[in-house]
């Protein structure tokens, strides 16, 4: 049975899109058919990680929301773009990066019910094992919808006071929406902190499971979103943490 997984963070800059792309790649390496939807319409970016150029984007999520294409027409097969040995398949539904189209959707808005329909349709039409939703940071109607229909939610935070407070809000809302599986990913943890201490503290604070505590990585910074970290650095501690997270999502 296919699973819908939302990847969310209360604040920006936590590594949400990077994490989403890596989860997708690791699932596909294991043979799964995966689709990533970039619902961060205000500030899209995950297409860069999948090396999908603007000129290759025949359609985007924006076109689907305006009724100009079907949801599967907005899905691009990016399996060959990521390198590495991918046994499954990866699709990406990007958000438009044209300034006029971003401005239009901000100004006019759209019916989030179309996202509801599109998520369910694309799972059926592309015969997906996993649909990953890269959400917009913070909480809004689209994010709540994504969480409400998801089978699993990954909440990303940094060990930072502002993130701690914002994550508490997200966890509270997710509990009210009865998400069957909620995993917190603590990202960009400084080497001065003991990962086990961080895990214990976060789990006690939120009464929620920590899926992984990932160290801050200079290699990740150097890669600078030019590719998918777990493919470029398969033996790195970050990749091992992400692999553990993926195993928990699958279980």
């Amino acid at each position, binding site marked *: 049975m296919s699973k819908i997984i939302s990847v969310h963070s209360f604040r920006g800059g936590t590594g949400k899109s990077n994490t989403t792309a890596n989860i997708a790649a690791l699932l596909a390496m294991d043979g799964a058919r995966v689709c990533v939807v970039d619902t961060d319409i205000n500030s899209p970016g995950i297409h860069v990680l999948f090396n999908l150029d603007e000129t290759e984007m025949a359609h985007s999520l924006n076109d689907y929301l305006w009724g100009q294409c079907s949801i599967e027409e907005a899905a691009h097969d990016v399996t060959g773009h990521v390198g590495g040995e991918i046994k499954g398949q990866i699709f990406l539904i990007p958000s438009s990066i*044209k300034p*006029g189209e971003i401005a*239009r959707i901000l100004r006019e808005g759209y019916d*989030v019910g179309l996202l509801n329909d599109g998520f369910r349709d694309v799972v059926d039409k592309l015969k997906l094992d996993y649909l990953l939703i890269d959400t917009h940071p913070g909480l809004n109607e689209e994010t709540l919808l994504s969480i409400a229909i998801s089978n699993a939610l990954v909440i990303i935070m940094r060990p930072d006071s502002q993130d701690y407070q914002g994550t508490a809000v997200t966890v509270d809302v997710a509990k009210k929406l009865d998400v069957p599986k909620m995993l917190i990913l603590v990202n960009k943890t400084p080497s001065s902190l003991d990962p086990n201490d961080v895990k214990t503290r976060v789990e006690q604070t939120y009464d929620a499971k920590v899926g992984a505590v990932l160290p801050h990585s200079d290699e990740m910074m150097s890669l600078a979103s030019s590719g998918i970290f777990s493919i470029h650095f398969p033996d790195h501690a970050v990749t091992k943490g992400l692999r553990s997270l993926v195993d928990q999502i699958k279980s």
Partner: protein
Amino acid sequence: MGKPLFETALRELEERKDDIRPSDIVLFSEPLRSALNTVIRLGRFSLTEFTETLPFSREEVKRLADLLIQRNLFELSRFATEAEPYYQARLSAMTRPLKRPPSDIWKKIDD
């Protein structure tokens, strides 16, 4: 025991005059909230399945379902029969009110 809970659920739905939005679900009381969470994840479900999520009679749950159709959270599915209604749960909401028709300003920005 179920009666006050049913009346609360009924009142909460009757008080809402607009479509039910994702943010409304978070604010509903129990057991309505959990029941809606369950069927929203199911997508399509029968009245029997919806009744199983609530400590109310089938007739009471049918009243709630009828209200949820009026509030555009449920749609009667084409699989529905008189004996067994089937529904589809569809969360919806406009992210921004549409105040004026689109102009060609967007094309000009792209150009």
